């Protein structure tokens, strides 16, 4: 069973890589399945997200190869259903289709979390589901409103539609979308589901949630909402959203510094990183958007790597509380090495993909507003504090855990692939930025 999942996800990854090599980034490819409300198209941004999705699913199957969860038929089936939904979100060309696929991803992740997570009481899970559903319903109102007002539903027609005549209604419609995205990303006051869900979820579920599901919201913001509502509505929402993002950056980092549980630390770290990307996207500047895409890819790499490391510790020692951990580096040197590499990638040291992305995002914020730029910069310093603490406490110090099985081949393979990708995109970010540049031209002023 586990081999089937791995091979199938590898096949989809290889197929998407082959198809991208025949793809001319200046083009749109359209598919029509005959269903009126759901049509598909691919542009270069869509391709990046599709490859990212397929890669994430492959890595999730590979990294959990020796975990029990992969042995369940239910998990494999739900994971592929979720992959289907995600690919739909990234390639669909109608606004209603976007909503349909967006919601479709919720059912499988909910079942994965429920069946394989350690949710002693279902409260946390309900919170996750209902938060998301609440945001989605707001988005549904906006989708219906947008379709009623413009009488259009495809992406290109909506871009061409003139929304300046509807005035304040545009602000409300965009607010509905932003609420859904703010829950999913998550932005500062809507984040309370995140840490609890990540901590209780099975490690594969956490990887899927943080590495690819949250990217749906950023993708929606970048491709759909900002270009369509360009004008009064984006001007209205720009600074509120950026403020929330900045609060999230600092708040997430501060909580991460104080927390004792590795998974919670990484969850808040994720809140902090995604705040920076959101703030950058709201500036609507084409170069910033390109580097935001680089940062989206980078965050997926970091999320898989870090949560995998936390999962390895949890699976072998049954705890992720850093007070109970120590001296693992002596017992498991290979794990210590690869965990260190991933820590540095997430610290965005130069020559990794995180550096180039964060640098340009912070620079863009600086250009617009200096004080906000300074606040955004703190992510680098605070990030160093919590990441080094999260690395140092379990790895060094007095040995509290004598028995620790060192890495297996599949885990080394995942770490190596992630590091290679991070360094490659760090040295040559142009391969992403140039590729997506064409489809991002529409998204700016």
């Amino acid at each position: 069973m586990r081999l089937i999942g791995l091979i199938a996800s590898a096949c989809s990854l290889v197929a998407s890589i082959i198809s991208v090599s025949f793809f001319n980034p200046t083009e749109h490819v359209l598919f029509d399945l005959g269903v009126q409300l759901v049509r598909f198209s691919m542009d270069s941004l869509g391709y990046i997200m599709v490859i990212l999705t397929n890669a994430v699913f492959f890595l999730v199957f590979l990294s959990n190869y020796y975990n029990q969860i992969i042995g369940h038929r239910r998990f494999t089936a739900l994971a592929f259903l979720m992959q289907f939904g995600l690919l739909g979100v990234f390639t669909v060309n109608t606004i209603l289709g976007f909503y349909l696929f967006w919601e479709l991803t919720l059912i499988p992740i909910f079942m994965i979390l429920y069946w394989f997570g350690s949710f002693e009481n279902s409260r946390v899970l309900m919170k996750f589901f209902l938060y998301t559903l609440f945001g989605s319903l707001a988005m549904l109102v906006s989708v219906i409103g947008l379709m009623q007002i413009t009488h259009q539903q495809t992406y290109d027609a909506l871009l061409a539609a003139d929304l300046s005549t509807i005035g304040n209604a545009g602000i409300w419609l965009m607010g509905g979308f932003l609420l859904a995205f703010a829950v999913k990303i998550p932005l500062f006051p809507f984040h309370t589901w995140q840490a609890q869900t990540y901590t209780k979820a099975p490690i594969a579920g956490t990887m899927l949630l943080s590495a690819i599901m949250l990217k749906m919201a950023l993708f929606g913001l970048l491709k759909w909402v900002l270009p369509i509502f360009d004008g009064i509505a984006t001007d209205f929402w720009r600074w509120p959203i950026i403020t929330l993002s900045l609060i999230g950056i600092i708040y997430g980092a501060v909580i991460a510094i104080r927390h004792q549980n590795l998974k919670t630390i990484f969850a808040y770290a994720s809140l902090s990183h995604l705040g920076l990307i959101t703030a950058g996207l709201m500036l609507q500047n084409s170069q910033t958007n390109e580097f935001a895409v680089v940062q989206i890819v980078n965050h997926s790499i970091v999320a898989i790597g870090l949560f995998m490391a936390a999962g390895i510790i949890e699976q072998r020692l049954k705890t992720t509380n850093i007070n109970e951990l120590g001296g693992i580096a002596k017992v498991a040197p290979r794990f210590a090495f690869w965990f260190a590499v991933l820590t540095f990638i997430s610290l965005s040291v130069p020559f990794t993909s995180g550096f180039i992305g964060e640098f340009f995002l912070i620079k863009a914020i600086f250009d617009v507003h200096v004080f906000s730029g300074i606040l955004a910069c703190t992510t680098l310093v605070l990030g160093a504090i919590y990441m080094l603490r999260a690395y140092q406490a379990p790895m060094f110090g007095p040995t509290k855990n004598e028995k620790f099985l060192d890495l297996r081949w599949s885990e080394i393979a995942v770490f190596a692939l992630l590091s290679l990708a991070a360094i490659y995109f760090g040295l040559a970010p142009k391969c992403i930025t140039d590729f997506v540049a064409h489809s991002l031209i529409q998204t700016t002023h």
Partner: protein
Amino acid sequence: MDSIVILFISGLLGLFVGMRQQTLLSLIIALGGIILAALAAFFREAYHTPLANYSNYIPTPAYVIILLCFVTLLAILGGYKRYSQDKDHIGDYFSLILFSLCGAIMMVQPNDLMLFFIGLEILSIPIYVLVGIEKGSALSAEAAVKYFFTGSFASAILLFGIALLYGATGSFQLIEIQSNLAFGIWSSPLAIIGSLFILAGFVFKIGAVPFHFWGPDVYQGASNAVLMYMSTVVKIAGIYAIVNVFGQVFRDSYLFWIDLISIIIVLSMFYGYITAWKQNSFRRLIAYSSIANAGLMLLALANTQNSNIFLFVSAYSFATIPLIIINNVANSDDDDLKNWEGIAWKNPLIAIALVVALFSLAGIPPLAGFFGKFSLLWSALPQIPYTVILALIASLIGAFVYLKLLLLALKKPSVQVKQSIPLDQIIALLITTMASLVALYFI
């Protein structure tokens, strides 16, 4: 008309066969009658009543009658296990259901108000009997008496409303009433009070707030098999009657009653879902969920030109029937939600049907329930935006309720017991699940 005749004849036939206590033969006759009735409706395309000539009037198309027949068929299949245990009365059950279906078909065809009333009575009286048919059970007797008294009361109010309207307009024919009202008879208090009374009668039938009190008690007292029929067909017939009378005949006074309808919608949805949250009896939970869904159905009145109710009522029926079948499996005639714990692990088909049905009721795409809700909201949003937003918030609470039930059913038990389901229920579960899944192609 053909459908009604066919149903009536097969109902009579069923009574005679029932005397010889042949369960399978009774089932075949009932199913055959329903299928023939649906075919008759299909080949007739639409019923050409006098109203069909009227330019702006939308006659009830044949597919509504086909839906009614189809849902009844599923309800009979799902309840067959229960009916066949009672060999003495097997013919009575099926015949009563078929007679009641005749009334439902009469109700959904727009013609004149007397026909509505007769249809309503033909629909209701067999159900009063069916609810009370469990002679040993005190709950069942209580439910039957309650339903009968409140139901007759509502019928009387409806009749009174029809009489007042007759006084104002001088006709029972819907088309004449409509044209008379268009001349401005609306200022007449007779017409206003008459239409309010008619509204009260219909709202009672679909069980929306403030005429919902009979719902939970009656649903709890009825057996699972009867409930399958009662909670779906009566609602479909009732909502089509409301849409035909209010959305068409009274459409000139739209601004007068739409506020009232909005209040009914919001109250029903909030009351239904919030009360459903704390129930620990399954049939009461279904009753409150159906109150809330009745509120949602009323959203179809918001847009008189285009009332997209069909998808929603079919999605609601295809989600409610499997739930009641599963309740039948979980606790055969008992009614406690405790027995639902871990039910999904007893049989894979139950698990799939349950997940699809509950997510469909909660309105998660790509299942039928979402498209039903979507088409309702789509046409209602420009007319009554605030009601729609409140309805969405209420349906979030509804998602809570269904999710709670789902989590209960999916909880892994310490000891797994496999349970097999009889063939007729397997067929009903499969059909409803498939219907909920393929809804995407019908929009």
